């Protein structure tokens, strides 16, 4: 898919995703080595966006499996369409049991779910397994087969093997430790907060109307907040939100009042707001 790491960066940038060297390198390797990519990092740094951007570049279908507590085989892999099967049985009353049996467990009555969809068919696909850490341990076991061999076994139909491997991205916020076996099958990428230079470029790209000097200040204040010991430090998505807020407020420079009034966009806990206000001297007017 890609010719070099620089190629990855350039083409991701075309879709509006500015990647750090670490991200670009790992995406390049995942493509070349044909391994799934496990992306961890704080919320709002662009883990899901990365999968979308890769799908856009490759002109691939994005297939998304959103994990949650209680997601199971029938939600992740495939299901039989029971209603349709019943209808079929009651429609053909005169046939033998064997004929009915082979018929109702055929392709027509299969409802493919994301994992099965991702390994069938010949067009390029990006499989996004979002918030893998939210799923139960059993689902991880299921993923192991799919991710190492790119095959799925349906007892009635046999084993279905991918003719064209999808590009797989798993994301995790590390709320539960993923199993060693799953980690072993993946390339590991941690997306942290971008450095100031990259974040400036991201803000400029996402909020182009914002004045350059103001964008610079925005990034610096966010950087200072991240260095504080807060319960939830602002992420890139909050930086962008804040930039948009400032634009909407018509602020052309940062001062105490503007920052104090809009701090809620960046910080999500009251004690964080208090702590940050004290550190930034917002009350010393």
């Amino acid at each position: 898919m890609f010719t070099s790491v620089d190629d990855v960066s350039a083409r991701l940038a075309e879709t509006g995703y500015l990647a750090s060297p670490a991200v670009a390198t790992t995406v390049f390797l995942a493509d070349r080595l044909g391994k799934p990519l496990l992306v961890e990092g704080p919320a709002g740094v662009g883990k899901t966006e990365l999968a979308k951007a890769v799908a856009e570049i490759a002109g691939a279908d994005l297939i998304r499996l959103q994990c949650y507590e209680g997601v199971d085989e029938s939600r992740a892999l495939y299901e039989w369409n029971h209603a349709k099967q019943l209808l079929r049985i009651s429609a053909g009353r005169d046939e033998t049991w064997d004929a009915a049996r082979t018929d109702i467990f055929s392709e027509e009555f299969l409802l493919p779910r994301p994992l099965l969809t991702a390994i069938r068919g010949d067009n390029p696909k990006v499989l996004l397994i979002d918030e893998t850490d939210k799923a139960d341990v059993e689902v991880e076991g299921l993923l192991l087969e799919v991710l190492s061999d790119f095959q799925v076994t349906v007892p009635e139909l046999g084993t279905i093997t991918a003719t064209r491997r999808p590009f797989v991205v798993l994301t995790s916020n590390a709320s539960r430790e993923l199993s060693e076996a799953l980690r072993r099958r993946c390339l590991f990428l941690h997306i942290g907060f971008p450095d100031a230079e990259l974040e400036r470029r991201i803000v400029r790209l996402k909020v182009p109307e914002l004045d350059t000097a103001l964008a610079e200040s925005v990034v610096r204040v966010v950087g200072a907040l991240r260095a504080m010991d807060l319960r939830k430090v602002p992420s890139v998505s909050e930086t962008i939100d804040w930039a948009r807020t400032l634009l909407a407020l018509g602020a052309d420079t940062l001062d105490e009042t503007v920052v104090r009034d809009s701090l809620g966009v960046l910080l999500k806990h009251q004690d964080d707001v208090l702590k940050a206000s004290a550190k930034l001297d917002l009350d010393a007017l």
Partner: protein
Amino acid sequence: MNARSAEAGSGADVAERLTGLVQALRSHGVRIGTGETVDAARALALLGFTDRELLREGLAATLLHGTDQRPVFDPVFELYFPRGVGAPGTGPAKRDELRDRLAAALAANDRALLARLAAEAVDGFGGYGSSPGSDGWSSYQTLDRLRPQTLLARVRDSLREGGGETGFADRLLDDEIRGRIEEFRRLVGAEARRRVAERRGRDEIARRAVAPTADRVDFLLAGRTQLAELRRAVQPLARKLATRLAARRRKAARGSIDLRRTVRASLSTGGVPMRPVLRRRRPARPELVLLCDVSGSVAGFSDFTMLLVQALHDQFSKVRVFAFVNRVDEVTGLLVHGAADADGLSARIRAEATLTGWHGSSDYGVALGEFTQRYGDAVGPRTTVFVLGDARTNMSDPNLPAVRQLAERARRVHWLNPEARSQWGTGDSAAPEYAELVEMRECRNALQLGALISRLLPV
């Protein structure tokens, strides 16, 4: 590409370097299989040696499995895939001239330039000794001669002149420059370590000079920055734990058949049990009582205990927390839901609870006795008690009957001891005596704690 990396690019040497790197990482507890090593080699082949940072990221992606392994990986990588030796083309620089260039680099925040200057600085000012065997490279000496911290005012002035910005963000400038200087100091440290490694054999340095990951740091030995890392390691732990418990409870609620109600339900179908009725289980709410030693001798541990206590308090509804030194007092009321502030908490506890009598050292006997007397009703047949402390009684009576009484009343009592098992029973430690009455477990770092807690907690 400089000479060294060109040389490093040749066949067998690369394989040797890579396996050396893998060995070193393994010796630090990073589990790497052969499959990953092969992937790493393929990554090496794909990425080439032209860009060292790409190489670093590529190897990290193939070899590592988690974020917390990165602080181990980076220094080890520096040792096995070093930047070129010395700076190309320049002799030992003059001190003032180097400071000038450093100030400019700090003002421009040019990472690559800072790294080159760090190499140059160690080259010029870090060497000591002249006879082979007693010579070496010192980051301390380099930084002492260069004094990068004194450049703060100068860099600030030059930035103010250049940018002319006087807005709100300007007040952040000092902190930002301090951060850059700190980064430079770190680079100098890494460079000096690398040079020493060249000399002494990098395998040995890689084994000894790299700090362990946060979850393996001994509670009792943790320094300030490590405590901050520990805090980050503990906070998700309680949440993880709570979701796991919820899942276990859910699973336990399904499964066994309630025969009486199944038969009763079958009456409507003429005695044919069409629909089995599953036993409904009343969810047993975990009741936790935590007894924490907060004396000075276990300071590192008790800071950490406070983090854990706060985390458990947020996740479980029935938690009562008692702190003791030689008197015991309930501190549950001092915990605020959602406030993850361990420093504030231990300060509040010390200020507001009565924990010491007429002396300040811990006395398990008196404290445990007082607990069973005053708060005995906090412990019942559904309670799990955690005692957190090193069981060092300062030579006073360990008061075993109190512990026996506690063990009889509670559902389970677990004692988590931050000392190594080999230390138990030495000096004034009453650990073996206590261990005969209640289960005592070694709990020296976050890794052990995580494993323990998830196994021990009631469902």
